[in-house]
């Protein structure tokens, strides 16, 4: 049901592989699928629209890189733009202020504020050797203050003494005073969960902000959040003003489109991600990982990059040159086999990735059999240099010698030579395509289909 983008792009892939520069129609068709993939990943609709418009502008008319298909290139453009929009990696917490530095934690009910408060305190304590005080301003939820006190014991960070009957603003002021008197570097202020549309409670958090002047106001958001991310982000940003976002429950299997929505609506960086219930499960934000996840394609983008490297451009060009000069010989053919065998290796790799069955099938359809390729390479390497340059030398006795030397049969040698002749015939086609066209379409386009089975 929730196929990632590469699955969705499957059919469009097919059509795109046959063409040159990205036309507007191609891009439009691809963008329809991108839109659905993003929506299924819970990216908010207005954000999806902006995103699509921007990507479209970038993609239309773009010259397709050598050694990748247009379809792959579309994925790459989408991915790269997503990474760019998600923002810089590992944006640090800002502690540049006279201690004690107040950090205010805000968000919806149950988003993970209290847990994240303790996680950040632990991180600041161990990594930056800060003396941290935590205070719970949540006087509403049953045992909320106690929860933070228990977490404080777990991470061995001080928590402000609980005084019954005090309101949130009072507690916040007491926390700052205590921190000042007792020489704390950072004061973490955990607040009660509140709905973004609850005016009264939003006013309360504004009062807390005004009383404490936080250097960081972190909006804690569940990675599973749906379209509501826009309302939440807009309201918290407009009413309270946030300095950064913490995405929680990234250890789940949600696609995490809320990350993009939040980032786009607030314009504020995603500073940290929660990856578990334990107090040490906090990590820096990596835009490329979240991007791959939103697109539902694991690390397919880096695989595409790898594939592009594997089919080495230089070699492709050399081959194209030979074809144009009409000097395509068995050495060139062997080089081509080696490359295609590397692709075969990619096929195995691709097979392990979720949701990219289409790509895999494509490679399968190319009918690449590694064993056959290896035998054919062996045949060629059993020939003399002269034979490889001029196949006409290969009479019956030479063929028998080559078959014996490569551990194959004369039939197989004959088959290879037939294939070679077919390929030479295709050089005409190659000339028509020109050097650029050949590199773009990849060597597979010129590869005669090998018979299935054996």
């Amino acid at each position, binding site marked *: 049901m929730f196929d990632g983008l590469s699955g969705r792009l499957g059919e469009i892939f097919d059509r795109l592989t046959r063409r040159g520069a990205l036309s507007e129609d191609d891009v439009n068709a691809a963008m329809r699928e991108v839109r659905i993939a993003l929506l*299924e990943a*819970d990216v908010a*609709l207005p954000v999806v629209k902006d995103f699509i418009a921007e990507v479209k502008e970038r993609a239309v008319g773009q010259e397709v890189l050598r050694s990748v298909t247009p379809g792959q290139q579309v994925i790459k453009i989408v991915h790269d733009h997503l990474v760019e929009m998600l923002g810089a990696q590992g944006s640090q917490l800002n502690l540049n202020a006279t201690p004690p530095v107040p950090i205010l934690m805000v968000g919806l009910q149950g988003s993970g504020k209290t847990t994240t408060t303790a996680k950040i305190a632990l991180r600041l304590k161990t990594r930056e050797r800060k003396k941290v005080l935590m205070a719970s301003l949540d006087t509403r939820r049953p045992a909320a203050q106690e929860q933070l006190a228990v977490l404080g014991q777990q991470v061995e960070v001080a928590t402000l003494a609980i005084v019954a009957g005090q309101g949130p603003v009072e507690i916040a002021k007491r926390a700052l005073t205590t921190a000042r008197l007792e020489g704390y570097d950072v004061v973490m202020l955990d607040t009660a969960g509140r*709905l973004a*549309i609850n005016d009264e409670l939003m006013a309360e958090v504004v009062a807390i902000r005004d009383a404490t002047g936080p250097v960081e106001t972190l909006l804690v958001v569940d990675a*599973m959040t*749906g*379209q509501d991310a826009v309302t939440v982000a807009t309201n918290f940003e407009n009413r309270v003003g946030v300095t950064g976002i913490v995405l929680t429950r990234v250890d789940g299997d949600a696609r995490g489109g809320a990350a993009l929505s939040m980032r786009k609506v607030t314009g504020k960086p995603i500073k940290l991600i929660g990856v578990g*219930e334990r107090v040490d499960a906090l990590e820096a934000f990596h835009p490329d990982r979240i991007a791959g996840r939103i697109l539902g394609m694991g690390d397919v983008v880096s695989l595409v990059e790898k594939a592009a490297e594997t089919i080495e451009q230089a070699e492709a060009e050399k081959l194209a040159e030979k074809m144009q000069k009409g000097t395509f010989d068995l050495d060139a053919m062997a080089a081509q086999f080696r490359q295609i065998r590397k692709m075969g290796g990619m096929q195995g790799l691709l097979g392990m990735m979720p949701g990219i069955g289409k790509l895999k099938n494509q490679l399968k359809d190319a009918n690449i059999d590694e064993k056959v390729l290896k035998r054919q390479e062996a045949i060629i390497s059993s020939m003399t240099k002269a034979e490889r340059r001029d196949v006409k030398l290969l009479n019956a006795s030479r063929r028998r010698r080559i078959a014996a030397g490569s551990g194959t049969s004369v039939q197989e040698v004959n088959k290879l030579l037939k294939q070679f002749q077919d390929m030479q015939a295709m050089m005409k086609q190659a000339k028509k395509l020109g050097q650029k066209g050949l590199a773009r379409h990849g060597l597979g386009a010129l590869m005669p289909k090998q018979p299935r089975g054996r």
Partner: protein
Amino acid sequence: MIRLWGGKTTKDQSDGQQPEATSGSGWLGRLKSGLTKSSSRLSDGISGIFTRKKLDHATLEELEELLIAADLGPGTAAKLTAGLARSRLGKEVTAEEVRGLLAADIAGILAPVARPLPLDSSCRPQVILMVGVNGTGKTTTIGKLAWQLRDEDCSVMIAACDTFRAGAVSQLQVWGERTGSPVMAREAGADAAGLAFESLERARRDQADVLMIDTAGRLQNKANLMAELQKIVRVLKKLDPSAPHLTLLTLDATTGQNAHAQVEVFKDMVQVSGIIVTKLDGSARGGVLVALAERFGLPVYAIGVGEGVEDLRPFDAQAFARTLLGLDAVAGG
């Protein structure tokens, strides 16, 4: 007091009938005020769109987008819009009509899953197991249910089987005090299944009518944690093969399309009997419920509309659908 409880068992309710209309009372007003906030943008959008008379493709597309913005998911939104196109494309329609038609379609999908909580008084104690992803509202919902049950003169016992999260037991104990329900608890880190077993023994001894078991929040993709939940079920069955009589999944209305995975996995692992949707008092619309109803057909027993003890309401398909589309719910359905 609103009756959340239906008669006897689920089977008796499975004829797809809607529960008795409960609208008109205060809860509906609250639900509406919650949903109205959330759906005003949606309805503004639709009224804006349908000032033109003829229903054309551009209009349908915008309409589809409005459904998507309510978390119905691109697939369900497209399907509903296509249905509308089949019957109304090119025809003269008013904004009101179009919304009414869509609301009726959505209500039609939701009606079969809108059911009251089945409570079988012939079997005591009724064991209710509360499960769900972290922070979705399990503990709070137990408090709310205990309150409702007590009002029905049921004796309630609560087992604090979230032995993992900091402060989880104290949180539940506060709810126990609020609702006058004894809470069975053990030290932090204790075996949850062991406590569940002990609690059922105790509930039997004390002749409690209902035993509610709170569990730690867990993400559905964590196999070990799901296995732990299955262990609780197994252990309960040793004492009473028919337990747990109800397994309730709390679903946060803020959740987007991941709700599919949540329902799918929890249903498979612990045979969820039905869903309680929480936090519907917020701006999130919970539209994913429509797709869930079609795909899984699990009953939606109640909705949470606040953090207070009384903020649990029956799920009314028509009211939900109409408020989702910014239409006033017609009193009495």
